[in-house]
């Protein structure tokens, strides 16, 4: 892995234009994937219920880019971006959302349970904070076996109010485990704004690290480069033996809590302002000063990829009913 120091050597921006462009591509892929998911859900094609992370793409992309393939992640209910960024092909994700055998969880999981062990995705989780302790255990296994791998848990601001979060960070710090706790702070827990669920100002949420004496690294979650560098630094720290890191990223959820959410609770102006000023894709696009045709080409490319994923998914195989009992026990 490249270290942060190498990345930030004098004489230039940490990331090359090409690298940033590849980030942009992935973020746009995530965006188009989720827009498609919204569309297909509204069309009645997707069973279950779904949460998209539109507006939060820089977190998924930046963090996962800093991880090695052999590193593992645990994801949340808002999982598509993490899964894509960690390396699961979009057609396998889409097939999962359609409940097909070709899906990344063979149709057993759905949007809230996207697994892909091959690329180190230990699973999305429909229980808030439910995946965090498992990440502590993965990091423990790595530490005990002397493997230079980290385990990273994604979770939201709302999740920091759970006992599960507390016990997990505490244990990880006590044992100085190679774990990165990625706090994806979008300021909302469903319909509840941070002011109603956090006793700290939302931007001070990183203070929770102090309760464990844990290393805190913070970055603007809408700036993919900042996220990437912060995640790289977090990974290095975690691997150094100095203990885990709370990686606090401020982001924003540009859509409803779930697909179909009428959002009666959210001020329209707040949303409009955030959309206009903090869309991570728009920010990066502007920064790269991407020519229109380049952007159009990129968009066409990822849109086609998403369309192909839908086609793949629709052509997929339905599980047999009695397969329901197939994986209850190993």
């Amino acid at each position, binding site marked *: 892995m490249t270290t942060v120091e190498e990345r930030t050597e004098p004489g230039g921006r940490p990331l090359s234009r090409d690298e940033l462009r590849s980030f942009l591509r992935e973020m746009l892929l995530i965006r188009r994937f989720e827009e498609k998911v919204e569309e297909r859900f509204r069309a009645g094609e997707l069973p279950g219920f779904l949460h998209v992370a539109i507006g939060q793409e820089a977190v998924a992309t930046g963090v996962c880019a800093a991880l090695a393939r052999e590193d593992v992640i645990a994801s949340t209910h808002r999982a598509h971006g993490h899964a894509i960024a960690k390396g699961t092909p979009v057609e396998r994700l889409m097939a999962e959302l359609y409940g097909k055998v070709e899906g990344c969880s063979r149709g057993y999981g759905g949007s809230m349970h996207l697994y892909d062990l091959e690329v180190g995705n230990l699973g999305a989780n429909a229980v808030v904070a439910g995946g965090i302790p498992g990440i502590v255990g993965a990091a423990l296994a790595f530490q005990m076996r002397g493997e230079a791998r980290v385990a990273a848990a994604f979770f939201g601001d709302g999740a920091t109010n759970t006992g599960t979060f507390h016990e997990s960070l505490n244990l990880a710090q006590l044992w100085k485990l190679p774990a990165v706790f990625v706090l994806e702070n979008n300021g909302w827990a469903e319909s*509840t704004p941070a002011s109603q*669920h956090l006793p700290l100002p939302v931007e001070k949420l990183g203070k929770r690290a102090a309760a464990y004496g844990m290393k805190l690294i913070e970055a603007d979650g809408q700036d993919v480069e900042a996220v990437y560098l912060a995640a790289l630094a977090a990974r290095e720290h975690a691997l150094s033996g100095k203990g885990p890191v709370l990686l606090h990223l401020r982001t924003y959820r540009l859509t409803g809590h779930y697909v179909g959410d009428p959002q009666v609770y959210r001020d329209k102006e707040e949303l409009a302002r955030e959309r206009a000023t903090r869309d991570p894709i728009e920010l990066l696009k502007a920064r790269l000063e991407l020519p229109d045709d380049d952007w159009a080409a990129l968009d066409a490319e990822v849109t086609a990829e998403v369309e192909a994923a839908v086609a793949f998914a629709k052509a997929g195989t339905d599980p047999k009913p009695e397969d329901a009992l197939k994986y209850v026990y190993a």
Partner: protein
Amino acid sequence: MPELTYREAVRDALRKALREDERVFLMGEDIAEMGGSMAVTQGLLEEFGPQRVRNTPISEMAIVGSGIGAAIQGMRPVVEIMYEDFLTLSMEQLVNQAAKHRTMSGGQVRVPLTVRTQGGAGWSPGAQHAQQLEAWFVHVPGLKVVFASTPEDVRGLLWSSIYDDNPVLFFEHRTLYPIKGEVPEELEPIPLGKARVHREGEDVTVVATGRLVHEALRAAEEAERDGVSVEVVDPRTLLPLDEETIIASVRKTTRCVTAHEAVTRGGFGAELAAVIQHGAFDWLDAPIERVGAKFAPLPFAPVMEQYVVPHAEDVYEAIRRTVARG
């Protein structure tokens, strides 16, 4: 008689209690502006304000635990756990604290707490958002357990739960919220511990809870066409259990099917079967058949979900099996 949906019926009981009694207040995740993830508490924030309709952090232990503490101080909190799958996080407070304070204190403490929750399959939520866990709580002395299946019942039973001096686990079923039913003009409390005979019959008793009450009623009609007369009983309160009504029914019909959506193994149907075989042994003409979910975490894909979870035809087939016996 006016008609309400199950959802409206729950809300009606809450609203009435909030209006009439200062001690009543609501706590739970997203119950305020959003009206709860099932829209049950919609409009209550506007009417009663944020002191009495309280959004909470995602803290299932503290939600239940602080409900316990407020109840002991004389309030009548109604807390909501968004999905019963998350009761797994509150078990310590429910089982070790709420259920036991009264005995441990030698009768000094009362815990008039109501914990509303909901669950159930039928909409492809996957394994962590559709469990039916009511059976666990029937095993816990000190708790009461209610599972209502109709608008009338849910309203009258919720009222009684709020005014019960003990901690009550109040289960609602997600797929029942939109169903409609007649209710008395004025809310009539329904006593805890009384079963309801939904349909009288002569040949088989189906004891069903929650969604399966409706499936059982459908199955009963189907069986009727075959000339089999089915009685459908809903215990409504699982703890304390109205053994008398249930046993009397089975003594009359001599055959019995239990039905719930929860996994069969270790489910409430096991307790029912144990009670019934004991109380109606000399009357029974066939083994008690249990209907419940197959033994698997609920898979996402609709075809598999459909397969795991029981429906009217499963009840129907169980009825046929009991009748086929001598």
